[in-house]
C-alpha cells in the first residue's frame, strides 16, 4: 500500500511502499508544487527508481526557480538507496 498526503506547513508525507505502480499517484501531487516543500519519509518503507525519478524531476524544476525539496526522516534502507543514486549530492537530506 502506498499513500501520499499533503500536510500542513508545505509538508508532503510519503507512506508505505512506493513502487513503480504508484508513479501516477505521486506525480499528481509533486507536479503541483511550485515552491520549497519538505518531504517527510518517516512512514515510507520502500522506494524504487521510479519514485526517485519523480523527485529528481521535481527538484530540477524547483531549483530552476530558486526553490527545492527538503527530505526528512528517512529510514536507513531508504537513506542508503539515496546514497546509491548519488542523490545526497542534489538534495538536502536532514538526518532523523
Amino acid at each position, binding site marked *: 500500500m502506498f499513500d501520499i498526503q499533503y500536510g500542513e506547513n508545505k509538508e508532503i508525507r510519503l507512506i508505505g511502499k512506493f*513502487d513503480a*505502480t504508484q508513479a501516477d499517484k505521486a506525480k499528481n501531487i509533486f507536479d503541483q508544487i511550485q515552491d520549497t516543500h519538505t518531504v517527510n519519509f518517516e512512514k515510507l518503507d520502500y522506494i524504487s*527508481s521510479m519514485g526517485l*525519478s519523480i523527485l529528481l524531476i521535481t527538484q*530540477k524544476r524547483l531549483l530552476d526557480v530558486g526553490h527545492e525539496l527538503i527530505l526528512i526522516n528517512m529510514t536507513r534502507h531508504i537513506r542508503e538507496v539515496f546514497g*546509491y*543514486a*548519488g542523490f545526497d549530492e542534489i538534495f538536502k537530506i536532514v538526518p532523523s
Partner: protein
Amino acid sequence: MEKKLKKDLSSLNELFDFIQHYADNKQMDSDIRFALNLAAEEIFTNLVKYNTQSRNDIRITLQKKGDQIILALTDFNVEKFDINQIKQYDIHQPLSERPVGKLGLPIVKKLMDKVEYEYKNHNSIITLVKYVRNEYV
C-alpha cells in the same frame, strides 16, 4: 522456488509476494528482503519497459546455494540486451546534466554482489547474487 509472471507492471505485487514467501521461509532479515525486493523490481520493470518484442511471461526463480541467494529473471524469445553493456550512469553528475531515469541498474549493482547476463536460445537471463550469512537455510 519458481514463478511465472505476466509481463506487465501490474505483476509487481505478485513479484513482492513471491519474494516475501521465500524470505519468510528462510527467516531472512529486513536488509536482505529490502535488497531482493528492490533489485527484482528494477530488473522486472526494465524488462517490461524495454524488452517489448514479446509479451511472454517472465520467469523468476529464487534459490540459495551455499552462502549465495540467487535471484534469476528469464525473459523469453527476445533480442539480446546485455544490461552489463549499458553505459554506466554517473551518480556524481550535476543535477542539470542528469538524465531522468536509468537509475535502476546502478542501484541494483550496489544492492547485489553480482549482476550477470546470459543470452541463450533467444532468452535473456539476468542473474542477481547476494551473499548472505549461512544461518539462512
